[in-house]
């Protein structure tokens, strides 16, 4: 875990309201594993007060940099998207439990919207591995499909879904998952995206008896396990902290129904 003042090396808009920021953070890049995240404060002021959590999108060990991909949804992300190269942010990480690497011959990566970063990072780390990668990426419309080129470059076959039918399957990315599970070869599923997508993915995987790991999101204050603000209900009772027992959980670890009830 490293707490650093990090220089912004690059800032680019990759889709409307979707930005990628590259930070100079060699210690974090060296330690990062797919599924982990960083906490970022874009300014020294007290409004916004709390750091924001972002999955690690790329970690380039040689260049010593870390990239995040995010959608501007509020003040914190808006502030971050104004940090031009040469400016600084405070960042700590890598945080949380990463994905366990697969042992199956097929790997299915499911990403919805800005859930794509951890899945891209995983695909890149698996690019040299012998398994077959299948990327299923969904967004509301074609202009919001991000990270797809990175998946292809990592050797993944990519199938797309859009809510408005502007590209790929007209419907949900989870429809593509159901179809992909019919194909031969034992698979492991990795997923990140909005809550309804995760719940559907987990249920599909559990019903099919396929091993599945999901990266969850929850409102966070500290990101390190101290505030107990980020809890999700565990299967069988009690709560797990998304920031340190997660953000990656196996499908059978979470009480999906209670989670849906608690935050919708």
């Amino acid at each position: 875990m490293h707490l650093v003042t990090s220089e912004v090396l690059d800032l680019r808009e990759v889709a409307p309201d979707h930005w990628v920021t590259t930070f100079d953070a060699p210690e974090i890049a060296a330690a990062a594993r797919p599924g982990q995240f960083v906490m970022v404060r874009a300014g020294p002021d007290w409004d916004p007060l709390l750091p924001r959590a972002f999955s690690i999108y790329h970690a380039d060990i040689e260049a010593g940099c870390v990239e995040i991909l995010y959608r501007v949804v509020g003040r914190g992300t808006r502030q971050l998207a104004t940090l031009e190269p040469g400016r600084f942010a405070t960042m700590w990480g890598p945080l949380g439990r990463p994905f366990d690497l697969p042992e199956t011959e097929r790997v299915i990566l499911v990403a919805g919207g800005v859930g794509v970063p951890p899945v891209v990072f995983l695909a890149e780390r698996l690019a040299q591995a012998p398994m077959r990668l299948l990327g299923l990426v969904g967004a509301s419309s074609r202009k919001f499909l991000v990270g797809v080129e990175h998946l292809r470059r990592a050797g993944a076959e990519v199938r797309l879904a859009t809510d408005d039918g502007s590209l790929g399957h007209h419907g949900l990315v989870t429809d593509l998952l159901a179809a992909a599970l019919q194909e031969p070869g034992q698979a492991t599923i990795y997923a990140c995206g909005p809550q309804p997508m995760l719940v559907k993915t987990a249920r599909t995987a559990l019903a099919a008896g396929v091993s599945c790991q999901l990266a969850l999101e929850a409102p966070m204050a500290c990101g390190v396990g101290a505030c107990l603000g980020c809890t999700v209900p565990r299967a069988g009772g009690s709560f797990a902290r998304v920031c340190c027992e997660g953000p990656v959980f196996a499908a059978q670890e979470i009480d999906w129904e209670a989670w849906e009830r608690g935050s919708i």
Partner: protein
Amino acid sequence: MSIEPSLAVTIGGLRLKNPVMTASGCFGWGEEFRAYFDLNELGALVGKAVTAEPRPGNTGVRIHETPAGMLNAIGLQNPGVEGFIADILPRIRDLNCPLIANVPGHTVAEYVRVARRLTEAGGIDAIELNLSCPNVGRGGLEFCVAPESVAEVVSAVRSATRLTLIAKLSPNVTDVAVLAQAAQAAGADAISLINTLVGMAIDVERRRPILGNVTGGLSGPAIRPVALRMVYEVVGAVQVPVIGIGGIATARDALEFLMAGATAVQVGTANFFNPRACPEIIAGLRDWLRAHGIRDVREIIGAARPGATPAP
């Protein structure tokens, strides 16, 4: 040549190497912060609330950011006093700084039971009574709102433990000084304040409260002026040491509380937005004292109170 200023203060039977402690519920039991600094630097470590029975905590959204602050409704999630003694205490008892347990309760008997078990277990140096809890015996009114119930809890726990006893007061009351006096009279060694201010937030699109619990406690820099005023009032009303809490994020904030008369401070929410907040505040206090030629932090305690020696 400048001399290294002394930061040491005393609270009841506790000798602190500096006046900076963590605030309950904002630092776990420290383990989450070991990666960011040496916990032995702390004046004292105040851990999470320990209740008689394990508590799962609240469902739904538990935290929400507000301007320069945050609301929380965690619901006292903790493994209970036996779980704490068995699983957590062995991992932290070797720390070279006093450990303070925060104890809430729904009945006087519950406070006493937890305090007694913590005393027997050893390794805990002080008990901070969280009096912002609904009193089941009095129709759910919080202990901290009536001087009689504050006195009842404090004196019952006083007879059950020899540990330093700190009464933590809530700001959600009419006259905090009267409550502080009641705690002192009942045997508290120190008063700490403030706990969070009750607040809420509404999601206007969904037309409903954001927090699963509807209301929550407001903390962070937003509450600092209110906290400072209350500390100033309580210092004027009691003789025991006062521990200032509320929105402290920098050495300058801590100095405000010390000058208002607090003997020590606790840092809560700041740990969330800066994991190194405590060591930075300690270093900043030392730098400030050195820059002002002050050899002992105790010289500035109460420095902004009427009758104190004016600044040179």
